[in-house]
């Protein structure tokens, strides 16, 4: 099972890198979304996919899933949600101000802004 997950995560990373290298700002943000999906799935996979029941204490259950990676993922999800929301608003603002979403046109040196 871990092998399958590794291939899926690898594919997510590949797609994320491809999207983040493109010109359009929105594609880049979609790429960061895929990248964080990949990272979160990777924590889950690297914690081990064993354990037959959810990590909630219940009578008669001995084989739980590892609770620590789930807590880490929950934290990382919230953080990346906050950053993505900020990033989207920033992209919106800069589309209004700079009137482009093409990263190649967002160059500038100190001589001409």
């Amino acid at each position, binding site marked *: 099972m871990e092998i399958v997950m590794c291939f899926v995560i690898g594919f997510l990373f590949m797609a994320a890198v491809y999207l*983040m290298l493109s010109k359009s*700002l929105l594609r*880049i943000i979609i790429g*960061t979304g895929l*990248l*964080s999906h*990949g*990272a*979160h799935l*990777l*924590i889950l*996979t*690297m*914690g*081990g996919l064993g354990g037959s029941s959810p990590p909630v204490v219940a009578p008669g259950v001995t084989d739980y899933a590892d609770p*620590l*990676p789930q807590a*880490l993922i929950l*934290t*990382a999800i919230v*953080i*990346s949600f*906050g*950053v993505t929301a*900020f*990033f989207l608003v*920033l*992209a919106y*603002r*800069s589309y209004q*101000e*700079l009137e482009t979403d093409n990263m190649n046109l*967002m160059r*500038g040196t*100190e001589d001409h*802004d």
Partner: protein
Amino acid sequence: MINLLLFPILLPFFFAMILLLFPKKLFLQRTISIVALALTAVFTIILMLKVKSDGIQAITLGSWPAPFGISMVSDMLSVLLVLSSTIIAIFVVWYSFSSIGKERESFFYYPGILFMLTGVNGAFTTGDIFNMFVFFEVLLMSSYLLIVLGGEKVQLRESIKYILVNVISSALFVITVAYLYSVVGTLNMADISVKIAQIDQPGIITVIAVLFLVVFGLKGAIFPLFFWLPSSYAAPPIPVLALFGALLTKVGVYAIMRTYTLFFTLDQGFTHELLMVLSILTIVAGCIGALAYFDVKKIIIYNIIIAVGVILFGASQMTETALMGSVFYLIHDILIKGALFLLIGVIIAITGTSNLRKMGGLIKTYPMLGWTYLIAAFGLAGIPPLSGFVGKLLIVQGGFEAGNLWGSIFILASSLVVLLSVMRIFIYAFWGEPVQVIKLDSIQYRNLFTPAAILVGFSVIYGVGSEWLVPYMSDAAEVLYNPSTYIKAVLGGA
């Protein structure tokens, strides 16, 4: 008081939350933020004396036993860094009163600074690798706010790049922590160190070490990963730039020093060699940039990169002398970069440009500014009585002791380039024909110049009083060189 080591994190956080309630009352915003920072500094000094007398302070939150809860650890290195970042924040806030402008001040500028200090102090103090990620995000999120606050075109453009790079490096951090967790099965830094020693550092741990170098190198701007820094840092206003230049890269440098001295100590042949080569290349890249520009901001920004290289070269040597030099140089660099950026800010405020070719003759109208800048420039380059000297001396000596002749020669040569780059600012801006200057009224000039001058004074005291500082620095280097004391303080008698 066992919770003393949490105060430098909790105090800025608490006051930042209070400041969120009344953003438009500028007087209260200014007073409370200065009071908060002063209180933080006082408690940090108490903590430093406590660490000096009683050794490493460690606490595991919620009274859980050590590897299971989140540990906060305050050794001498982290408490010195916390103290110097709090001092920088005080002066930056003071400088901001008369330079940042009312529009920014009434849109959560001061809470932003306090939240960033929370993140920085937390990242210096934490003893848990995932908690370090969270504190990194706290400081990065506040830095996103500070870099874009004001919404000028150049700020919007550069903050997009800054955020993108940091989102990628944060994802890499999560990935690296996941790999490390799958190998050692723990997140507590002391416990990770024990577990890595138990499994005798197999190849996968070396891979993780290099991944950590990539992650923290992106934050701390080492050689192939510094590309985002010069243009991003040039975008925000001067006080924010001073805060970023003094603190943010140093957090990455601290994280590299911590992981490379605590975790990856068994197989140094590859990892520390790589760190050394990259740090030398960082110095070379920074030197090229510092000489290439005629823009005062860019020159100092590239000097940040040089300093990162020098500190990491010391850290890669793993001799006690070089580690002590690194600690000395790290604190020096926080102080002097803060001071230099504030001085540059005064120069830019007077001349209205950051282009060196359009400046000249300021020594006639502003002699005090000129001589203070000269002292700061000499301090940066490491002229003997001033602050940069001892650190660089120890790093070079440690390099010789470890047999890295050429690395040490590069460090010495880089000092010349640093001196040349900052003296060029002095020669162009202060000598020569006077140019038309913007007439600042004397109160505003004094408000801008005083914090910068006092910060330069601090760095001079730091240099002259280095004899007095040696016991603190050797305590800090001792923990880096000898991680078993750190592990013992966290895990108990293990």
